[in-house]
């Protein structure tokens, strides 16, 4: 296991690289879901209070 | 452009035909473009102060390098092509803000868009005027800046030639960015962010051609690539700028 984690001495470069990429993937999921949730919330608010447009 | 100067009699004969049923005879596209060019040049010479700004800026930026790097001409000569092109790129960026701004404020662009003439063509004429007022003076001033950086006088014709071709491309590419940022209150930084990345090829080939010209070797290869960029910009940039202006009028 420790030889796997050591990555032939390249651990200091490989693991940060993988972490950064995974972080970007996770951030994308969070951002996308967040923006959809916000848009849905705004749409529900507009539906609840009948505005001037419709 | 001078071939379009038709005798006044033809124009007069045409105007008498105007009636309510048909539109008045429209001016040919070349004449419309020539008038636009003439108007912009006249205006620029009425406000000479604005003309000097990009040139002063160019001179200042060039002057920063001896102060920041070293006054040794040998070292300056090595970085001279880069200095000249970075300064030229920034100076032309500075001048871009004036390209369409006044015409957008007072409704001239709107009238151009509704003139029945090709907006692409009119904006091309405006960009040509802009190049004559900023790009060409920069190209003519570049040798003086170069010589202050230790470049020998033999390289002067080459530097002017490369600068002329490069500034044509820069003005046209910049016109797209200037048209896209119309109608924004503070557009300076955004204009730079939009324009600089797509201007990089001009910088690369221009600086390389200048480097070769300074070294006294043949700079045909990068100059050809630079000219290809300029031709591409001449054909495509006015189209994109016209589309951007129409969007800004919506």
């Amino acid at each position: 296991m420790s030889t796997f984690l050591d990555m032939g001495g390249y651990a200091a470069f490989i693991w940060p690289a993988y972490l950064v990429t995974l972080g970007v993937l996770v951030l994308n999921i969070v951002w996308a879901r967040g923006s959809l949730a916000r848009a849905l919330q705004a749409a529900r608010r507009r539906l609840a209070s009948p505005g001037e447009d419709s | 452009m001078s071939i379009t100067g038709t005798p006044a009699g033809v124009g007069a004969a045409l105007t008498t035909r105007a009636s309510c049923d048909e539109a008045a005879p429209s001016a040919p596209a070349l004449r419309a473009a020539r008038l636009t060019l003439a108007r912009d040049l006249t205006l620029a010479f009425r406000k000479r102060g604005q003309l000097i700004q990009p040139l002063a800026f160019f001179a200042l930026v060039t002057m920063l390098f001896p102060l920041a790097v070293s006054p040794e001409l040998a070292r300056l000569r090595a970085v001279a092509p880069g200095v000249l092109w970075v300064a030229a790129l920034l100076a032309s960026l500075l001048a871009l803000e004036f390209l369409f701004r006044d015409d957008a404020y007072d409704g001239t662009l709107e009238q151009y868009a509704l003139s029945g003439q090709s907006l692409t063509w009119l904006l091309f004429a405006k960009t040509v005027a802009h190049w004559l007022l900023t790009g060409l003076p920069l190209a003519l001033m570049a040798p003086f800046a170069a010589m202050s950086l230790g470049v020998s006088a033999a390289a002067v014709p080459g530097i002017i030639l490369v600068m002329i071709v490069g500034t044509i491309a820069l003005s046209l590419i910049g016109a797209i960015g200037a048209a896209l940022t119309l109608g924004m209150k503070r557009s300076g930084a955004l204009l730079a962010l939009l324009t600089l990345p797509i201007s990089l090829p001009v910088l690369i080939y221009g600086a390389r051609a200048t480097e070769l010209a300074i070294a006294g070797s043949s700079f045909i290869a990068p100059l050809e690539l630079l000219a290809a960029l300029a031709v591409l910009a001449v054909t495509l940039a006015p189209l994109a700028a016209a589309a951007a202006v129409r969007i800004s009028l919506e």
Partner: protein
Amino acid sequence: MAAMRWTWFHRLASPPYLYALAARLTPWVAWPAALLIVGGLYAGLVLAPPDYQQGEGFRIIYVHVPSAWMSLMVYVTMGVAAAVGLIWRMKVAHAVAASCAPIGASFTVAALVTGSLWGKPMWGTWWEWDPRLTSELILLFLYLGFMGLRAGFDDTQRADRAGALLAVVGMVNVPIIHYSVIWWNSLHQAPSVMRFGKPTMPAAMLAPLLVLLLGFSLFFAAVLLVRVRAEILQRERAARWIGETLRA
């Protein structure tokens, strides 16, 4: 006949249809993406043999290349969507283009960081003016310019159209920028050590990479579908179908 063939296009252009379609498709894209990415990373880290030159260090390829590939693919998707939006004045195409930019920019950042982390053991410096990394950096500025321009407009329609025009201009320019950077680089230094797509790459090394490329592409599609729904909701504020969809 011609009209029949174009109906799918017109249906896609209808916001309620695309909204519902995106909602239905998302899980079908997201789960395969997750499986492929997890499987690909495992294969890349464990199953693939070490490189005879770079040893274990080459394993960064499995995150760097998919990120770099996505940064370009997202830009092309954005440019195509933008062109469609401009030409046919199609709202949902603008929604797609606007959704692409943050995704693409984040992949570009990932490609830059992993490239730098790969560069340190290979070149001995964190940053090398390698043509690929330089192009990637310029691409990041193109994305930032697109997002900055959109943010500069208050009105969504104008932001859409101006941004779309910039995206199309950028798409024309990306190959020009890329080749001039390669040309510039060839003058100043020897070809870099980072060479991809070597025909000698053994299948055991190549397979995880291909799996990951597919996985990342599906991941992009899944995130895009979610984001597009949000953008459509924003653009169609006053439309009646939103009420019907949400109450259903």
